[in-house]
């Protein structure tokens, strides 16, 4: 029997939470970015589940946009990280704190 919507929501929220945990805890910026992607994917899953269970295709279409945005964001974000690395020689998050008072 098909899994209920509840199950998909729980799964999606679990994935999101794991991704969030990673953003909070990891110190390597690149890994933080990967966890960020994980969160986006979790959202995508939820959207698709909802659109399936409501019988519309709006959720699916929104996933297109999420995909696009994720791609753009990754590109720019990584470019920034590379630029940062060239000046600071580090990508550890707790060493990139020049915004400190």
């Amino acid at each position: 029997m098909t899994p209920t919507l509840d199950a998909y929501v729980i799964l999606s929220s679990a994935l999101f939470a794991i991704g969030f945990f990673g953003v909070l805890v990891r110190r390597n910026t690149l890994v933080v970015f990967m966890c960020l992607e994980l969160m986006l994917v979790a959202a995508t899953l939820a959207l698709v589940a909802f659109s399936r269970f409501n019988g519309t295709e709006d959720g699916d279409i929104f996933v297109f946009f999420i995909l696009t945005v994720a791609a753009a964001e990754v590109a720019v974000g990584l470019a920034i990280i590379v630029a940062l690395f060239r000046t600071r020689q580090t990508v550890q998050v707790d060493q990139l704190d020049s915004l400190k008072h």
Partner: protein
Amino acid sequence: MTPLHLALCVLLAPLASAALIALFLRRKGTMAATVSVAAAVFVAGGALALAFGGARFSDASCEWLRFGSFSISLGFKYDDLAALMLSIVGVVGLCVHVFSLGYMHDDAAKARFFGGLSIFMFSMTGIVLADNLFMMFIFWELVGFSSYLLINHWHERKSASDAAKKAFIVNRVGDFGFLLGIILCYWANGTVNLTELGNHSPVFSRLIPLLLFCGAVGKSAQLPLQVWLPDAMEGPTPVSALIHAATMVAAGIYMLCRIEVLMVPQALHVITWVGALTALYAALCAVTQRDIKKVLAYSTLSQLGYMVAAFGLGSVGAAMFHLTTHAFFKALLFLGSGSVILACHHEQDIFRMGGLRRKMPLTFWTFTIAVAAIIGLPGLAGFFSKDAILALAYGNNPAVFAVLAFTAVLTAFYMLRLWKIVFLGNPRSESADHAHESGISITAPLVLLAALSIIGGYTHAYPSAFEGVFSRIPEAAGATHAIIFAVSIGVLVVGAGTALAFYATDGRDALEEKAPAAFRFLGELRTSFDSVYDYYVAKIQQRGAMILNFVDIMGLGGLVVRGLGGAAEIVGFGLRALHTGRLSNYVYWFLFGVVVFWAFAAGVL
């Protein structure tokens, strides 16, 4: 031109003259003098025209300020009382203006002087014509200001500027009571319009007239605020004549007459005694003075005491009658002394004058007429008015009568002392030796005022214009009349005779030599009030001010102002600690925000 318009022009002409002088004629003394004298002529002419034209009106007013249900309006009340006062102000003012042309001829700041005189005329006319207490208060303060301006004319002299400040401050003390009285009157009676005034409510009915009397105490220099008038003699003599003898100090009496409807017996009792004691005190102080103007100043104080006592005894007519005659002969005395001072090259000590009878005959004769008037020689103006007051006192209050009679003795005593030492005998100094009569601008006013001092007492000679006032002068009947007459003559003879016999014309003060203790005592009397005030200010007021200063710096400056700043600084420090620069911290803050939103959405918060 309707009477109302004429009155308005009379009020505004001196203001226009003052404005003109202040704006354009600062350096042009002669032209300023001309403008000012022209304004004075207009005021005198207008006042006399209005008085004898018969028009009387009291309901011309317009609203000036409005605060909700409370409004201040400006208007004219022109009845017989106002007509009389305005005529006095106009005539005496004109005489003084003309006199100043000669007296201030060589002064460097002539324009400022005449500007001040014009402002004074404007303010005084305002007081006379005012129809409600607020308007009167405004002009009251203006008169005080012009007095300050004019006393301070020779401001390079420290004594002059000190005296001006003293006059203004002491006046202010009286005006504080006056203002309180006005406010209370408005609160209790609902109106300050002089026509509508009346004791509508019993609350404060004893307090209000006493507070309003405070204004008169300040302005008319009664005890205990009389300290400013002798020092005000630092101003030029025309100023002393106009302001501090004839008109401004009489404004207090005028105000009292205006508010007579508010008076209650208890207040009147206080007023009578204040007046009587002032008269006595001033007469005692005058006996030992060396400066001619100071003698006349104390004489003014004494006569003002008479007027106040007359009012306190219940007669507006007697007070105003004495005010009228006093204006004439006191102005004459001051202008005469001004002529003497000018002739002796600004010498004011009477023991360095003498023998001026032969050198300045016209001044001598007019001055004699004035002295005779003030001591109450029968037939001259002062006799009739003083008689009226004595009769009134005899009828109502024997103690006051005794005080006033004794004061009359003293009046005769010191006036004759002055007269003898200044005019009789031989010249006692160089400047007195070279004295000679001055030009016509000095002598003409003297003659006019002398004439008025002679005929001023015959009230039935006045046209019916001033009926409303003069009809209220008490007439003594029968036996009382004879008694009072005898008392007046007796007083005059005793005082004058003693003075003439006692004092010699050789440059020494006989009292000082023969009764040094008494002389010293009388001298101390003079400075006693000043030293009390000095003590109060130096010890009490200064200490209070220092405490307040401390509270201000510590409390307000430190605690409130810098405290608030400090609090903001602390909050800033706290917020600063939140900026760690670490990504994870910021993400935690995001989460916190999301949780708050969820709590909102779930209805928990």
